[in-house]
């Protein structure tokens, strides 16, 4: 592989050296919060007061991740987050805009049951961290 005369030196030679002294292009994720643009399709927030339990959201959900359950007399949507593909078709077809998007994307969990979001649990309007 010796040093045969190259037509011109490959730019990689210079790039490697210059990168050695440049700041690495790494964002320190766990210690620096990742900035998420507006309109990011993260975890959905469902407002029980606006909901008229018409069931349109569970009918239109491509992944059938919304199940209508009986909650004190009314049918409310129950979200299976492990099934959900976060396409927000439910938010679009909801006549009362009861489903809003948030910027929460850290939904990883070690037990599966915490991925099923029951309606009354989200009755309060706060937009903070899950559990």
């Amino acid at each position: 592989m010796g040093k045969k005369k190259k037509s011109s030196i490959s730019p990689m030679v210079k790039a490697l050296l210059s990168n050695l002294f440049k700041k690495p292009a790494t964002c320190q994720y766990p210690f620096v919060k990742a900035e998420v643009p507006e309109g990011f399709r993260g975890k959905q927030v469902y407002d029980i007061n606006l909901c008229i339990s018409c069931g349109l959201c569970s009918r239109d959900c491509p992944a059938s991740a919304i199940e209508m359950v009986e909650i004190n007399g009314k049918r409310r949507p129950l979200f299976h987050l492990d099934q959900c593909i976060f396409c927000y078709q439910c938010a679009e077809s909801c006549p009362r805009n009861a489903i809003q998007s948030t910027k929460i994307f850290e939904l990883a969990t070690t037990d599966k049951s915490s991925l099923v979001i029951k309606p009354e649990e989200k009755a309060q309007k706060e937009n903070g961290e899950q559990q």
Partner: protein
Amino acid sequence: MSKLAMWARLKSPWVLHFNSGACNGCDIEVVALLTPRFDVERFGIKLEPSPRHADVLLVTGSVTQQCAERLKRIYDQMPEPKFVVAIGACACSGGVFKGNYNVLNGVDKVIPVNAYIPGCPPKPEAIIDGVVKLLNSLKPEKPAKKEKKK
């Protein structure tokens, strides 16, 4: 389990990635973890070629009929203290393909799963968060320990 061994196990989780029938949306996010912007080598995570070397198995995709047996074989080949992370809605529960004739609806139907990362596809940061949560769950329970990455 001596403190040193636990420290070593938490600090160098070698990873193996298996796509058991996914639309490769999650796979390119898993590979994106190695690239400069997310760079999981900061945590000592290395992508290993063979199941023998790996501690954590990252599985993407709703397991198809043909992949089920391969997934089981790879899981058996991995040496003990092994963990499985199901990445993406498909791996957690079959996602949008749930109910199709050739799909087994999720990785936990085939092998025990330790961590679930929903999302279609989950952001690379969400995958890092999942792995970090998995590693934290291995730590021996210290009651007073403040969760530093709240």
